[in-house]
């Protein structure tokens, strides 16, 4: 399937996951990720894969744990409240070093929140996907094409580093349709060997144990240190960021996902008005593109998010006091308008001129 097709973002995530070799999907209904599970339920049987609607998000993530333990490419998807339920299982995946992909098509929160698009799970995705000392790679697509490309790539990253990986999308990206070119079906013969998998000893090796329990504190300390060495590798190798008109920019807008699309429109309008403004769009939210931000010679940064201001803290850490960092956001499922962002850029530009 290499021709351009028109697809919803949620469907693109599902199709790309199957092309990446995912044959075990476990889900539970929730808006606005509905089309993803529906697509899986329709197409998994045609590919001799397993679609299983679990009794809860908790069960679904533990089914992912079981399929991942057996060495298979596996995925689950949900939206914000459902992701909260999955975080127990995600912590166990991290603790047992199991590769898996988790999709969050975010909606407004906290609590039951809204069903409109939001980015209010940034902190959860980058800091708190369950208890314990761990990180996990977080990808933030901003187009339907990136939904496909990043879901596809996520499985390789998960297998390479033996870690769960999160795709942090939102209801807007999930529901919108755009042309997309699907990647080729992934041949799975060059994957890292999964000698740790519980796929049966066949009487030829000692038993494998998939486990996150370490009753000996020193052993757990050593395990966590080994895992953080892997995280350091991920930070070295896997940072992804897009820069747009940054070189001469006095103002750098930092935005990810759907908010970055809106920011880009506002930046184009501002450039037309002669304002030197650019965009840094983190594609990986962890590992965070700290260096790209720190390398900017901007006089000011403007962080635009669909939340009350979460990523702004990572920008402040990267900028480290070198320039002011301002924030503009809409929360609860409200999508900021390009003219609102433009007004923020213009106001900031005027203050810089003073």
């Amino acid at each position, binding site marked *: 399937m290499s021709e351009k097709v028109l697809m919803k973002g949620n469907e693109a995530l599902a199709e790309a996951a199957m092309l990446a070799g995912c044959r075990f999907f476990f889900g539970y209904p929730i808006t606005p990720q509905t089309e993803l599970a529906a697509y899986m339920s329709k197409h998994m049987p045609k590919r001799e894969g397993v679609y299983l609607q679990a009794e809860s998000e908790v069960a679904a993530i*533990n*089914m992912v744990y079981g399929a991942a333990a057996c060495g298979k490419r596996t995925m689950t998807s949900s939206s914000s409240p459902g992701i909260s339920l999955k975080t127990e299982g995600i912590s166990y995946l991290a603790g047992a070093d199991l590769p898996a992909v988790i999709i969050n098509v975010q909606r407004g929160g906290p609590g039951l929140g809204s069903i409109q698009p939001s980015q209010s799970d940034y902190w959860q995705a980058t800091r708190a996907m369950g208890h314990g000392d761990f990180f996990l790679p977080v990808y933030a697509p901003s187009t339907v094409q990136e939904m496909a490309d990043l879901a596809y790539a996520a499985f390789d990253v998960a297998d390479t580093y033996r870690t769960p990986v999160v795709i942090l999308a939102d209801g807007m990206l999930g529901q919108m349709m755009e042309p997309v070119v699907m990647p080729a079906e992934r041949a799975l013969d060059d994957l890292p060997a999964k000698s740790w998998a519980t*796929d049966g*000893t066949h009487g030829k090796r000692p038993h494998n144990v998939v486990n996150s329990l370490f009753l000996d504190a020193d052993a757990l300390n050593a395990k966590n240190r080994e895992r953080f060495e892997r995280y350091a590798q991920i930070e070295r190798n896997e940072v992804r960021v897009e820069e747009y008109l940054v070189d001469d920019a006095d103002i750098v807008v930092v935005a990810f996902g759907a908010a970055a699309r809106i920011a880009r429109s506002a930046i184009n309008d501002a450039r037309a008005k002669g304002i030197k403004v650019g965009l840094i769009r983190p594609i990986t939210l962890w590992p965070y593109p700290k260096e790209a931000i720190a390398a900017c010679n901007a006089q000011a940064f403007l962080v635009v998010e669909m939340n009350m201001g979460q990523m702004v803290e990572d920008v402040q850490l990267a900028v480290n006091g070198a320039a002011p960092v301002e924030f503009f956001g809409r929360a609860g499922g409200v999508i900021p308008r390009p003219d609102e962002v433009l007004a923020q850029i213009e106001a900031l530009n005027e203050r810089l001129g003073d």
Partner: protein
Amino acid sequence: MAEMECVFERPKSLLPVVTNYCPGCTHGIVERLVAECIDEFDREGETVGVVPVGCSVMAYDFFGCDMIEAAHGRAPAVATAVKRVFPDYLVFAYQGDGDLASIGMAETIHAATRGENITVIFINNAIYGMTGGQMAPTSLPHQVTQTSPYGRNPAYAGYPIRVCELLSSLDGVAYLERVTVDSPKNVRKAKKAIKRGFQNQVDKVGYSLIEVVSTCPTNWGMTPEESFAWMRENMLPYYPLGVYKDVQADGFANVAEAAAARAAACPMVSGYAEEA
């Protein structure tokens, strides 16, 4: 001296390690029976076990087959996925009463109603052992535990769950039997029940659960002998031994046939049966 025949030895599927179980605990007996069954099917290399959170949390170190340690209560969900990945393997979940009947009840019921071809070994000793003897979902009315120090008062703490009886209404369930291991005769019966649970996987009959009414001498504060006496006197009247469901004894090859017959008056079901 003539060569002596070895008539009793450690099952091959049980590793030569020291367990963490207290003296008099029945986990050791039951795990041995599970291992004997795996040996008798000669399928250790194609068996995956899933263990719970609780006293048997470290049973992954005791069995020789591949093992997965699940989050508290989630063993049936994990075992479901393992069986979907490897439909021809033997897959078992080994769980205690808190794990299976409290925090993991949703996973238990839904794995059962889906008719997952797995075998669940359910240790019911009416107490949380690992954490020091708290009230369990199967603690008896008026049973004194660390968190029911005046006895479990049903007015406040509700009633125990009879798991076999509860699951017996579900169409996905192939076999339910409640056994105990307080005597050689009952150990043999328990072995037979567990073996039947595994045989059902081979024959793809449906979900099987073997409940073993057990003891906890440490947290009950009794000797092993006193514990068995207390169990016989108090637990067995509340949790009667016996077979609670057996679709094959009812004349069906598997749960699909039994469920279709039960719902024969439903056009959605009978229509599909005729098609098949």
